[in-house]
């Protein structure tokens, strides 16, 4: 029995390590490439160990001094602002709409819920034409609002909060009523604190979602200094005759990966709890 268990443990670890390697290797290669001079990367085979050009590549990327145009520092800032607006906006709007759908009896309540739910099936890409028209007509092209607001409405988050609210015992609502808490007071004092773990999980998911937006910023941002970093990477890669400085491109990619990675690492505990925890 003990032997069999060790066998399974070894097998599990082999599979796990293989999987991790497959995922990690390209990231490692990006990092390695960012530490070499441009001409070293073009050699065949490509070097597998970090080189000595780390400082030069990253400072070139951050300041944009290598002729690529916008500094990465600026792009990270743009990304960060957009992502923050999207994440906070999505969570607050979803919390409120789920609250309305679950706790209030108003005409066409069920219809409202289904309308929200149906939009789940319509990703940004499908409505990108009309959305662009609206944003352009409102003069929001190349603004933080234009880049983030159209991405805020979220059926997924509303649905998740609705499901969570449905598990909150009725007695708790009644106890709050007896205690004299009005609806918004109940929402603020009881419902939101109870949803903290769900909010944390959604924060992680939505942060990554916002950070990784590509298509919408690509059309809604036309000026270089409003490019978020994910779009910026593409712009740094030279087209046609100009030579790509791959070390700078890779440094930019590594920098782009860092913020979501930090968010995931810092919030991992909450993230797992929010998705798994059913105890209230």
């Amino acid at each position, binding site marked *: 029995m003990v032997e069999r268990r060790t066998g399974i443990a070894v097998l599990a670890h082999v599979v796990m390590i293989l999987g991790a390697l497959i995922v990690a290797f390209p990231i490692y290669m990006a990092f390695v490439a960012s530490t070499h001079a441009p001409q070293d990367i073009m050699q065949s085979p490509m070097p597998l160990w970090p080189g000595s050009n780390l400082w030069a590549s990253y400072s070139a990327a951050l300041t944009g001094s290598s002729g690529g145009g916008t500094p990465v520092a600026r792009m990270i800032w743009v990304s960060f602002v957009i992502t923050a607006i999207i994440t906070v906006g999505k969570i607050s709007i979803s919390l409120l709409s789920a609250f309305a759908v679950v706790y209030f009896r108003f005409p066409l309540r069920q219809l409202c819920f289904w309308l929200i739910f149906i939009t789940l099936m319509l990703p940004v890409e499908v409505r990108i034409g009309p959305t662009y028209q609206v944003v352009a007509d409102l003069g929001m092209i190349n603004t933080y609002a234009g880049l983030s607001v159209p991405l805020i409405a979220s059926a997924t988050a509303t649905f998740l909060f609705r499901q969570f609210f449905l598990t909150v015992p009725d007695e708790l609502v009644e106890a709050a009523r*007896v205690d*004299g808490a009005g609806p918004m007071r109940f929402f603020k004092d009881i419902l939101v604190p109870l949803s903290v773990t769900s909010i944390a999980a959604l924060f992680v998911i939505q942060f990554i979602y916002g950070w990784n937006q590509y298509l919408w910023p690509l059309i809604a941002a036309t000026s270089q200094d409003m490019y978020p970093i994910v779009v910026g990477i593409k712009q740094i890669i030279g087209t046609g005759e100009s030579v790509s400085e791959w070390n700078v491109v890779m440094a930019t990619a590594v920098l782009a990966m860092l913020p979501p990675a930090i968010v995931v690492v810092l919030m991992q505990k909450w993230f797992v709890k929010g998705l798994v925890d059913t105890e209230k």
Partner: protein
Amino acid sequence: MASIELKNVIKRYGSGKTANQVIHGVNAQIKDGEFIVIVGPSGCGKSTLLRMVAGLEEISDGQISIGGRVVNDLEPSDRDIAMVFQNYALYPHMTVFENMAYGLKIANVPMDEIKARVDKAAKILELAPYLERKPKALSGGQRQRVAMGRAIVRQPQVFLFDEPLSNLDAKLRAQTRLEIQKLHRELGITSLFVTHDQVEAMTLAQRMIVMNGGVMEQFGTPEEVYTRPASTFVASFIGSPPMNLLKNAPDAQPGVITGIRPEHLDITPTGWALQVEAVEMLGAERLIYGKWAHKLHAADADETVIIRIEESAAVPALGSTLHVTPRADRIHHFNASTGKRMDTV
């Protein structure tokens, strides 16, 4: 402190032809400071009635007043009541102190008074060492006490209890029962207590309301309810084992049900002849289950008569014939068609 008055209170769900009426006009006058227990089987409407007093259910018809003030259209928080829920309904993210203080905080009571009131309640309920804990870190009995503490600090006119003991184990339940009694003696606040447990009802109540199918069957002291049940339902619901309700007692008139509690049947040399079917040992006493020895009326003569005897008394052999005599002053009569008590036969 306040009296409570229920005037022809009706609850129905839905409207028009599909309306489903679940409370059929309850009338009751509850005096200031009384401890009233509402008891009945599940689905009899006892919780609904309590929730209507609390303001958590709308009153379809009739009128409820607390302390002379009609509360039909008032929010629960404006009715000057406090409620203890079956599952305690403590706010899981708040400490014991915050749980108890929440209602006061909303009512804008100054912080030092909140603290004084919570500390006092915590002292009464022996919760002082746990004030900084979250409900998750408390045992069932402690959570129950926090729920009561939350009710006490509000200093309400009326306490409402919705089966607060049903989630406790037997020992804790008996203990908490005594605590609730003590609390009521000390605070003297009018209380409505819903339970399905007749022992709880008998021990706690100053007066009790027995409900069945949305109708108030009887409203009286535990003694009255036990010794003079108003209907066959009350007679069979209160008391364990239940009262014998006999259609075929030897000297019965047609259309009259004879009721006699098992402890009021004495084994005598002559009297009602019964055939012993089973004997149960309960510790301090034994229950003898008997059937009529000679079928009196052919139709439904198959009635079981339960007799309660002392543990030390002689045990009759199974299958033997036993003679019992009911104590004359303990015989009850009920109308066989309405089930209502008949005081003159």
